[in-house]
């Protein structure tokens, strides 16, 4: 039964397309191969959108509804466009006559009416229109693709999706990226040369204990204040709070904002620095009077900062019973 339907599709596709609607298929092939836009892609507007998707279809049409204009700020559209171009050109390279699959793009700037008619308020949207030559009406309904923003190789994902809904296999041929390759080689050689040239000047810094101490401390402070969490979870820097203010401390124990971690890192740094000052700097002061004042000052800084830290932590973890004067949250 299945086999028959497949055969029917192909026969209607190859031979009877002329009989069914003489010019439509050929026009579309020509449009795909025309110089306008990338190879293997039809640039649609309100008029020929209907031609492409109207009822008797003996081909599959994959239509991308997009909004490339800067004004709409659709980053996903712009990220996805080269992938879609690659999809069209890959198919066109192997199938110059398109062989039953068309890739088309409808931009919002030339297809406002269609967008309104289909009640589309977001972009990008991709739809696959199956052929109408076989099967019931329900099977002809366009199928929508779900974009996965995390997908690095979106073209492959779409190709897989299209393949699973047509009887043909769409494969992607990524052109070798010569620019990247050359840039990389030049970069490696450049870095090597630069480091060779700069070595006499950098060597003292490279062997400077202070520099390495500073680097290690910055790394430790960065990591222990939850920077990797921000990096992995991509948390917002701040969030507009109630009454127009800005809230920079996230509620909840396992949640945080970008600014919040920076505050914490600074607090840790101040605390660590005051303890270093207390144990290394203070006993090396020569004047007894100024030493006394300095010790008291650092001691006070330490106390206030730790107290602040405790109160912030109490904000994050409501049930926390401990506090340290003077700041009691």
């Amino acid at each position, binding site marked *: 039964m299945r086999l028959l339907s497949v055969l029917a599709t192909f026969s209607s596709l190859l031979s009877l397309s002329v009989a069914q609607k003489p010019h439509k298929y050929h026009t579309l092939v020509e449009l795909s191969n025309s110089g306008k836009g990338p190879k293997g892609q039809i640039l649609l507007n309100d008029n020929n959108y209907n031609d492409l998707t109207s009822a008797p279809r003996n081909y599959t049409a994959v239509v991308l509804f997009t909004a490339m204009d800067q004004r709409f700020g659709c980053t996903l559209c712009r990220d996805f466009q080269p992938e879609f171009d690659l999809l069209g050109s890959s198919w066109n390279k192997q199938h110059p006559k398109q062989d039953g699959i068309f890739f088309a793009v409808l931009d919002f700037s030339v297809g406002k009416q269609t967008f309104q008619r289909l009640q589309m308020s977001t972009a990008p949207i991709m739809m696959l229109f199956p052929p109408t030559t076989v099967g019931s009406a329900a099977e002809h309904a366009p199928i929508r693709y*779900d974009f996965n923003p995390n997908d690095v190789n979106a073209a492959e994902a779409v190709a897989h999706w299209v393949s*699973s809904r047509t009887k043909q296999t769409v494969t992607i041929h990524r052109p070798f990226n010569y620019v990247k390759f050359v840039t990389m080689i030049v970069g490696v050689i450049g870095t090597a040369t630069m480091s060779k040239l700069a070595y006499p000047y950098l060597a003292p810094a490279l062997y400077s*204990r*202070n520099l*390495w*101490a500073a680097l*290690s*401390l910055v*790394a*430790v*402070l960065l*990591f*222990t*204040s*939850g920077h*990797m*969490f921000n*990096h*992995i*979870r991509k948390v917002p820097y701040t969030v507009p709070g109630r009454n127009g203010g800005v809230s920079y401390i996230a509620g909840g*124990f*396992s*949640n*945080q904002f970008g600014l*919040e*971690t920076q505050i*914490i890192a600074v*607090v*840790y*740094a101040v*605390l*660590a*620095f005051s*303890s*270093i*000052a*207390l*144990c*290394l*700097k*203070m*006993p*090396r*002061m*020569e004047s*007894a009077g100024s*030493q*006394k004042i300095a*010790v*008291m000052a650092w*001691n006070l800084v*330490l106390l206030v900062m*730790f107290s602040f*830290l405790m109160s912030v*932590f109490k904000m994050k*973890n409501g*049930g926390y*019973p*401990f506090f*340290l004067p003077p700041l009691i949250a």
Partner: protein
Amino acid sequence: MASVKPSFFKDPASTQSIRGILRVVILLTIAAASISSRLFSVIRFESIIHEFDPWFNFRASKYLVKHGFFDFWNWFDDRTWYPLGRVTGGTLYPGLMVTSGAIWHMLRMISLPVDIRNICVLLAPGFSGLTAFATYLFTLEMKDSSAGLLAAAFMGIAPGYISRSVAGSYDNEAIAIFLLMFTFYLWIKAAKLGSAMWGGLCALFYFYMVSAWGGYVFITNLIPLHVFVLILMGRYSGRIYVAYSSWYALGTLASMQVPFVGFLPIRTSEHMAALGIFGLIQLVAFVDYLRGQVPSKQFNTLLRALVILIAVVAFSGLVLLTVTGVIAPWSGRFYSLWDTGYAKIHIPIIASVSEHQPTAWPSFFFDLNFLIWLFPAGVYLCFRQLRDEHVFVVVYSVMASYFSGVMVRLMLTLTPIVCVAAAIAVSAILDTYLEIDSPEEPDPDAAETKKAKKAKESPLPTGGFLSSKAPYIGIYSITSKIAVVGAFSVYLVLFVLHCTWVTSNAYSSPSVVLASRMPDGSQHIIDDFREAYYWLRKNTPYDAKVMSWWDYGYQIGGMADRTTLVDNNTWNNTHIATVGKAMASGEAVSYEILRKHEVDYVLVIFGGLLGYSGDDINKFLWMVRIAEGVWPNEVQERKFFTPRGEYKIDHEATDTMKNSLMYKMSYYNYQNLFPPGQAQDRVRGAKLPAEGPVLHTLDEAFTSENWIVRIYKVKDLDAFGRDHFAARAFEGGKKKTRKGGLAGRAAGKRGRRVVRV
């Protein structure tokens, strides 16, 4: 009296024995404190194994003491991963079980027959005392015994370590942190003395560590990194050469004796750094030797070229071997540490485990309190002297901070070094401010001359380190001393209170038994898990197969003693995905999977009645994702979301959701508990549809007191050869429809095929 007292404290010779006794007493007290602070759960609940993985370790330990070591080594377990089974002896780290087995035998030898369960429950607290001691030894090498004692005390009660070592938490980490610290201590000792004996001892404990925990890779990379940094700093010496070569050669050979590790040390990228440094240090040693023999400058240039050539050839050889597949690339778990987005996209099973999530800053503070800000200060102090062993502390600190930031679980490896560094800082402060004698204030003229002197001797012994350029004088005023010492005493007391509070509130729940408070404040124990597992044990045949999500595999195996399909040892992703598919699909598809795997019972965890948020519906999306990873065409995550992208279980839930086996099993008959139309899910705060789901292929077998555990029996094939949909429709009194509906049609097509199989 006044004249005697200072000399009594000052003279090291006269007080040496007292100091020695004091040290022992303090260490014993610390060990006692660290053990007793881990006993909250035993006192509150009972001597019981916690959580999930410990149940497997417990089961394996029981097997070990019952059947002996060699049977344990060759143990093929046919009661897990049904129908595949698991070569348990070859796929576990045996260190933990062998340790408790040895203790069990030892106690029996001295006529103390203790139940293996009690040994397992109390193993982690016992080892925490040893960890404190190992930390003391390690810090002793860094500074002095007072820092060592402080470090031991911090280590004993730091929640970052307690979280994995309370009584009942019978997991690999229980002994691994002790081994980690002790191996590092031995390494420092070996590198300091350049002794092959200490290197060999280090290798021996490294072997013990390898046999106990997968985290041994941390040691495998940290020691080579230490050596590498030392070489880069121009600090290569014969001592380092002897220590590293003896450790690497012996340790690697020994580690390969563990069946689970086998040839990994020479075949995976994680171990290549150690091998590469081993090669490098031979080269460096060779060059060093030749340099001593041949003074010619040209020859040195030639030699350098030769060394670089060899290094390049070795490196490209390594790359070639990796590309051709002789050396396996990074394993997924390890790789996700570097490329933090990797796991999210490629390995949902890793991303699904909450232990593998990144760490937010409150967790650091929660687990370490004020140690976390003393930590950078301690690292800075290490830079001041920067002997070889201090380089180790610095390298360890930076690496461990990164790893613990990426993965919550690795907080465990950070905690020891935080304790050590913080102890160095605190003890440096106390050293300065607890000095009873105050220096004389120099008169201004003398200060002038001193400054002039200082200007002359510009290359200072500390290597021009910023904060210690001026000469050490001391603290003049007694008030300053009292203020600083007083403040730090308060912080220390606060730390102890914090640790006790955290341990008692956050880390002492067995999670097998839940505790809640009654309105009158008394404690109410919720014991649904054990109730259900006990029901399974008593009411089902011994060879019954129970399907559940993998989280509960070990518990079912340990407590109910029944065969499971998947468990917490997540070695076979496809098999887990199969279970995920069975849970996520409609009954027709699921029944086929259940029949094929001869499943008798299905167990789900449902928290809707009680508000227990760790239930299966909340984990459901992971089941879907993992199943989708294997069958992208049959299970699709987006079908479980409403058009607006929400995960709903009420009347807005998608059809796929409502028809999934998991949904049906969770909410089956649930609406009958409430007045019509009032059924409520307390976890997700949603009202359920008035009409509950209908099950065709399963029978409800057991539901625990608070509905947390629900067990269903898989129906046998119908006696009349009908599919279950038709049978149910017939029993429901409806006239047999022509095809039994859409679902029935699907089942009819597939269900019969199973009969023929």
